[in-house]
């Protein structure tokens, strides 16, 4: 694996499967009474959040703590990017403190890439979401969730998602989750279809390794997983679609639509869900919806990523068991 995790596109198939397998091992740790590994003892990880995201921050923090890392939370909120010195200055401060990894969330696309490549800092950089660009650990936890549900917890080990059909619905244009998922799912052998009104698809989407459709109903019957993206209400004011009602009617997932999906198919949502707009309460609360599992899986997956970027080359669990027998 590379030294940083900036984009889901950076991962090879083997990298990705290794992360998912490692995440399964991490999940076993979560089932124990003491949910902690000594792996990153003495290592310092900074959660550098320029943009509010309590969910993602807590998920990373839990992962870091379970690996016994020293954790520093740095909320650089409000520091405007009007002059942009803040990122570089902050990076250099962290460098001086000798941190080993920086988990960065930033409103500007490319900020984690700059942080990793501009020589401002030496630490490993993990992208926790940048602008409308990438959110690779989200894609990994989504893939982990799909593999568990569609292939199986044990049966999935060593496996990718070959031949699985995944549909991603909603605001693709502004979604780093969609970009990351398209890259990773393609690498893992899945067939991805993006569904959205044409206004919410980026120009150039035709070059992505996926299918594109404007019609949700025709794609549902052939989907193994349907991932609903959040649509922000303010998009309406920018004329991306006429009204909330029309959006829900054409692209929202309700019980009737869910019934058109195959029996085994799951409904996913990166959260936070706003019931009513893109997903009805009925769907969100059904067993087929994995939104809550995704949150738990996020911790396992992030532990795996941190372990593999910062830890040793040995399998995490061997390490853990050695520790246990002492």
């Amino acid at each position, binding site marked *: 694996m590379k030294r940083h995790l900036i984009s889901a596109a950076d991962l090879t198939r083997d990298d990705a499967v290794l992360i998912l397998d490692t995440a399964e091992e991490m999940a076993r740790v979560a089932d124990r009474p003491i949910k902690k590994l000594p792996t990153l003892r003495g290592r310092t990880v900074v959660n550098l959040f320029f943009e509010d995201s309590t969910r993602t921050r807590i998920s990373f923090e839990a992962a870091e703590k379970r690996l016994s890392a020293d954790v520093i939370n740095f909320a650089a909120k409000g520091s405007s990017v009007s*002059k942009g010195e803040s990122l570089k200055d902050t990076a250099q401060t962290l460098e001086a403190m000798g941190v080993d990894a920086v988990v960065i969330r930033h409103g500007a696309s490319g900020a984690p890439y700059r942080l990793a*490549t501009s020589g401002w800092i030496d630490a490993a950089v993990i992208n926790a979401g940048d602008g409308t660009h990438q959110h690779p650990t989200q894609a990994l936890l989504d893939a982990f969730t799909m593999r568990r549900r569609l292939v199986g917890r044990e049966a999935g080990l060593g496996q990718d998602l070959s031949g699985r059909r995944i549909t991603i619905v909603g605001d693709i244009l502004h979604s780093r989750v969609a970009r990351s998922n398209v890259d990773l799912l393609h690498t893992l052998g899945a067939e991805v279809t993006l569904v959205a009104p044409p206004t919410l698809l980026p120009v150039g989407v035709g070059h992505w390794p996926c299918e594109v459709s404007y019609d949700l109903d025709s794609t549902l019957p052939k989907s193994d997983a349907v991932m609903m993206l959040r649509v922000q209400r303010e998009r309406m004011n920018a004329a991306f679609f006429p009204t909330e009602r029309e959006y829900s009617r054409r692209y929202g997932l309700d019980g009737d639509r869910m019934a058109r999906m195959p029996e085994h198919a799951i409904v996913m949502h990166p959260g936070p869900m706003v019931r009513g707009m893109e997903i009805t309460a009925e769907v969100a609360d059904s067993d087929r919806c994995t939104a809550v599992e995704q949150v738990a899986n996020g911790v396992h997956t992030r532990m795996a990523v941190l372990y593999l970027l910062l830890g040793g080359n040995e399998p995490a669990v061997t390490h853990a068991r050695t520790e246990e027998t002492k």
Partner: protein
Amino acid sequence: MSKILIRGAKVLGGEARDVLVDGETIAEVGTGIAAGDATVVEAEGRILLPGLVDLHTHLREPGREDSETVLTGTRAAASGGYTAVFAMANTFPVADTAGVVEQVWRLGREHGYCDVQPIGAVTVGLEGRKLAELGAMHDSAAAVTVFSDDGKCVDDAVIMRRALEYVKAFGGVVAQHAQEPRLTEGAQMNEGVVSAELGLGGWPAVAEESIIARDVLLAEHVGSRVHICHLSTAGSVAIVRWAKSRGIDVTAEVTPHHLLLTDELVRTYDPVYKVNPPLRTERDVMALREALADGTIDIVATDHAPHPHEDKDCEWAAAAMGMVGLETALSVVQHTMVDTGLLTWEGVADRMSFKPARIGRAEGHGRPVSAGEPANLTLLDPAYRGTVDPAGFASRSRNTPYEGRELPGRVTHTFLRGRATLMDGKLA
């Protein structure tokens, strides 16, 4: 007065000639001219061009002297072979009154590395609402002939129409920065395959093309002339070509960087590539080269846009737009247009001196290299090969996309009215 004999230079890339400069003018062009008491510049293998004229320079003074001043900017110009530059109006304060344009003009005269012709703003404060005192700026000591809100588009069709009409009274020209503002809200790079992947706000080609299409039609309707700044797309070229075929009085410019660089470079997220208009695709670059060669695009203009290091040493979204260009322009044009066989050196003289001087009505510039003409001259070594090192720039800013890149050619001498401003590659 001092005499200079430039010996054996290929004038406009043609036969080797001796050029004798006496005082401010060219005294003689021929072969075997005796040196007498003249200082001799051995110029065998070099190309002699009329002094270059840049219709689109940002000198940043007044207001952003940390980026560039009239002094440092004109020194950069002389280093790049320029004898005249047109200074854009988006300074602080904006050059929208006779007072500010005269200030810039006087600074240019005092420093003397090249002539500085201020460009006046079209609208007060570049706000696009109210015409600035175009006539007063023309009547001032600066004798402004070119008006532009560059950096911003004159997007109100009525204001644009009135400006085009109004400047007819004194033979002025409006230079438009074509960028439909609503279509480019939040735009950070060319809209296309790369922007979709990088998650950067897209800047569609049509935002430029729709304004150009409108403006050539307005110019036709009111019988005025319009100049289009920094064309960047194949579609813009097609519109200008159509307008010219229809007899509309339009001229257009292209920057050196749009002749060479593409949006693929943005994959590095290195703000050195962040520029307005944005770098486009390979297809656009090829169309721009072709259009410059066939005359659809009239001139090369640098859009020299200096920024201090800290404005570029940050994340992409926060970085300032623009790149410096005066000192590398001729090398990039040689690389993209001459070495590719698209343009002769005579063509380069036409696109970088004769025509820009004519469009901006720069007195004494863009004249033939012949006896009796003002001795505004540029001498370059086309065989030179080297990598660009911004540490050696005369510009106060270093925001060049060419750092470490090999570019051909080097300006060795620049003469402004017979006085060397650049001598053997060193500022005089």
